[in-house]
């Protein structure tokens, strides 16, 4: 996308809203409306990756030290990772604006 979606006028909309650039969904920050975010206590984390397996949005990534963390640009705050975590190291906390 050449510019953010909320800057397009109706005259600039492509015919039938066709998307000609494959994979451009990655440019959208789809997680900006979440009300809770997962916070990982790395002292308790065993790096098993079960949160990575269960995340329905593929928003969890592995960092350089091997810990699994959520990319908050895409995480919707559903809490499945916290629910599934074997050691209980993930806590959902309120988003602050």
């Amino acid at each position, binding site marked *: 996308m050449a510019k953010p*979606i*909320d800057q*397009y*006028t*109706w*005259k600039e*909309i492509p*015919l*039938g*809203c*066709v*998307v*000609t650039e*494959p994979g451009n969904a990655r440019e959208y920050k789809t997680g900006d409306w979440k009300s809770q975010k997962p916070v990982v206590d790395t002292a308790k984390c065993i790096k098993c990756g079960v949160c990575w397996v269960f995340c329905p949005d593929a928003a969890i990534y592995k960092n350089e030290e091997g810990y699994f963390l959520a990319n908050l640009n895409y995480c919707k705050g559903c809490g499945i990772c916290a629910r599934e975590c074997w050691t209980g190291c993930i806590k959902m906390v309120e988003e602050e604006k």
Partner: protein
Amino acid sequence: MTGKRVGMEVSIAASEAVKMANVDCIAAYPITPQTHIVEHLAELVAEGELDAEFIPVESEHSALSVCAGTSAVGARTYTATSAQGLALMHEILFIVSGMRLPIVMTVANRALSAPLSIWNDHSDIMASRDCGWIQIFTENGQEVYDHSICAFKIAEDRRVLMPTIVNLDGFTLSHVVEPLNLETQELVDRFLPPYQPIYALHPDKPLTMGAFAMPEIYSEARKAHDVALRNSYPVILEVWKEWGELTGRHYQPMETYRMEGAKIALLTMGSFGEVAMEAVDRMRAKGIAVGLLRLRLWRPFPFEDIRQAVRGLDMLVVMDRAISTGGIGGPVCSEIKAALYGQAKRPKIVSFIAGLGGRDMPPEQFEEMVGQALKMKGKRKMEEFITIGIRE
């Protein structure tokens, strides 16, 4: 005169037009009274007379969904339906127009159930009025043939790219044999070039059609669709003009009949226009200054043509073949009223509902409507609408 003069069932004429338009793909589900159109096309494909894919489906929802797919890859695509079938397509109607896929569809207009009726009125198309397609009404077999061919040229024009519905009255038109002119394949080929899409699905150049629109962009997308549909108007005129020059048969968004000096006029849409002409002749012979307006183009709605056509009229009698229950009554009349509301001088408008579910409308009924309307001339208080010929 060009082409070949034949006597032909109007459904067959519609399918012959589709054949001459050299469609690539047909996906349809048979439903009365559209059946003969689809059956004949299936035969033409099976016998090798038409080189197209005929995709049998299990429902109308699937029929139009298949059409969306074939049109999206750039195939010239056709379907046809009626009544409940159109209702079952409802969801997909909006999807293909939003995606600007130039599918052409014949709707053999029929009443909606319940109670079950297989006969003709316009309640099917009126329930799908806002689907964002170009919508044209026809009066006779020749018009069905002509507009079925023109529809492809209009729909596929790069300035338009909008699906198009050609309405024909079920049974009243679909099942009658009429004299009409079939043009030569050479003429049709000259008139209708192959479809060249701007965007088509192809593995070599991936793109996405019908994607998600966030609240930040949906209104803009809707506005763009509305403007595009309105902007199809000059192209429609251009295509009809070109067809007229080739065949000698000329069409206008609003056709008029004996409007010279008319003080009162009937307004109809579809095949009843021909009966209304007979009624107008009879009333003119009795000295009533009555004329007839026949609305051909329903979407985009021809506001200016309507305003021009009613100039000089004291009264306008609008006949609707559908009823918006619990609301405005006649949908056509309500739109005519809306088109004229802002005018400084406008005729008094009387709304009649007529010919529902196959109820016959002989010329006497049109005379009756004009007679009733004339009695209301000085009255300030009027009923919202009157259903003509109803047993009390």
